[in-house]
């Protein structure tokens, strides 16, 4: 158990990078980029976890109950927003590329390099 979360992080990163490296479709590369980024959420929440801790909300539980780290959760939230923003912008590039070149294959796009 100790190492499983971290192994999954490494696996997800490599899987995402593998997807970007092998894919011949820009939209799929963007999706793989989302996968690469998702590894950071897992790592962030993984390092902040406390065995037996509760979620850091004290509305109906007493203060000083053992809780997991709230900071990594705030960071992960910020990370999710960044993901959404970057993905949307990248997709607009992809749409425009398709409109200009009629293709989404990075190899064919490279021939239009300006």
């Amino acid at each position, binding site marked *: 158990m100790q190492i499983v979360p971290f192994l999954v992080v490494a696996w997800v990163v490599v899987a995402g990078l593998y997807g970007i490296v092998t894919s011949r479709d820009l939209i799929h*590369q963007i999706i793989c980029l989302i996968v690469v980024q998702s590894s950071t959420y897992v790592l962030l929440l993984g390092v902040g976890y406390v065995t037996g801790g509760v979620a850091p909300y004290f509305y109906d539980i007493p203060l000083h109950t053992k809780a997991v780290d709230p900071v990594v959760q705030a960071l992960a939230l910020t990370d999710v927003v960044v993901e959404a923003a970057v993905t949307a912008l990248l997709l607009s590039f992809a749409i425009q590329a398709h409109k200009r070149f009629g293709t989404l294959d990075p190899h064919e796009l490279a021939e239009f390099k300006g």
Partner: protein
Amino acid sequence: MDQLYALSVTVPLVAAAVILAARPLFAEHRRVLDLAAVAVSASVAVMLLFLVVRTYGADSTYWFAGFRPVHGIAIGIDFEAGPLSAGLASLGAVLLTGSMVFSWRYFSRVGTYFHVLMLTFLAGMTGFCLTGDVFDLFVWFELMGVSAYALTAYRPEERGPIQGALNFAITNSVGAYLSLTGIALIYGRTGALNMAQIAVYVNHHPPSGLVVIAFLLIITGLLVKGAIVPFHFWLADAHAVAPTPVCVLFSGVMVELGLYGIARMYWSVFGAALGHQAAISRVFLTLGLLTAVTGALFCFRERHVKRLLAFSTISHAGMFLAGFALLTPLGLAGAALYVAGHAFVKGALFLGAGIVLHRLRSVNETWLHGRGRRLPVTGVIFTVAAFGLADLPPFGTFLGKGWISGSAAAPWLTAIFLVCGVLVGGAVLRVAGGVFYGLGDPPGEDPQMAAEANEETGETDEARQRTPLSMLAPAAVFAALGLATGIAALVPRVAAGLEAAAARFQDQHAYIATVLNGATVTRAGPGHPVAPAGVTVAAVVTALCSVLGAAALALAALYWRRLPLLRRGYEPGAGLTVAIRRFQSGVINDYITWLVAGIAALGGLLAVAIH
């Protein structure tokens, strides 16, 4: 006064939002909004210059929402400014203001979005320079990145920009996410995000692989942004196609911000814990020189003027990294001065290229040969700036490079710097002489490269018969500022102050005391010996050699075919074309592969260096 920290980031952000929202109200009077954007950018430059003056004697810290650290534990986010960080931010703001003025007559449509994106870029830059928190660093890095991607694709009707923006955005995003992984790793160990607090923790615990890898991963994103081989491929693709005023920022500060981030991470956070200074210095020196040589060779071979300037930026980024890698105050001070001098000179060159594009609708050196004679003033500015890039004394580039060489005191380093300077300077002077004065013959046409250069159509809507003053003035001012930084650094007091600032930047104890204890540290502690920063005979001789060599190389390249001794038809550097095409493939899959390989190689090198 302290509020300047917050204002320098939030004022451009609020202005960007207000300008975007007010767009429909000012449909008939767009210039009001443009003017407001320029004014905001100029006022941020002034604020940051105030910060430079204020922190000249001692660094200072600002805690957001007033959460000061308790018992050495930071619970909020801080900004920490010293002369170098505030200086770099203000350099960015000045360049951005100049670029905005240049773009006044440049885009006749949808200018408002351009200004909005420029303002968010400015805020990202400033936040990145001043922050003292690793996650906050990532946030501003991303804001800068997202603005930069959109600015690169600002002319989506062209073919190149979209492709360049895609390569730029994907490569940089992967780099940024790996940086975030590094941040998560170091947080998982130290439970801290504040740089000073992390430094305290790692200094007091036995070194571990985690610290090495966290450092490596955090700087990965910065190496990508700093265009260090083999993370540099995106740069030429993006810089060649971004609108020219944006290129000024990309080459002038964005690349340098990446390198600044590496220096910040090393000196303020990881340096002391990593130890093994000599070995780490060698690793970064190797990287820097490799980058410098690669960039210089590719630069000389280019015929696409903007792409040529982009490769020269890669070469210079390598030299900046080498300056940092010496790990001496003089080396860092030299790099800082070099960055400032280079930014202005390169800005003037890019703006010159922008004027050529505006008037003559091409950036193909071969086609442009002799056609620039119609633009005498631009020609003079471009030529002066080209000599500045070739390290003509007393430009800032000359003294900066001289300090780095002087600090290294290694003839081979001076020799490599000289070769790179000659190649880059020669390439730019060749463009200046050929395009604006019609010297020699047009350089040989390589069919594919010519096709690439011809891809570029004008960025402006209609060709104008004369160059507006709003374009000429910023270019001239940048060239003059490049000269002014060099002359200012000749004053012994300024030189000593810059070096003292560099020594303070490298003094981790001073940084920790400033941030966590609110101490006022006016001078670096022992262990940061300050070598005299002055003008040495060796520096002047080397710089003159560089200028003469560059001029000779440029003339040789222009008059190549008239030399009777040499075989006709042989082009200098022809063999490089294959290499350029092979590595600079434009395929994002290749770039990401190189990125992963770069991390693995660097990780291996660091592991060897530490053990």
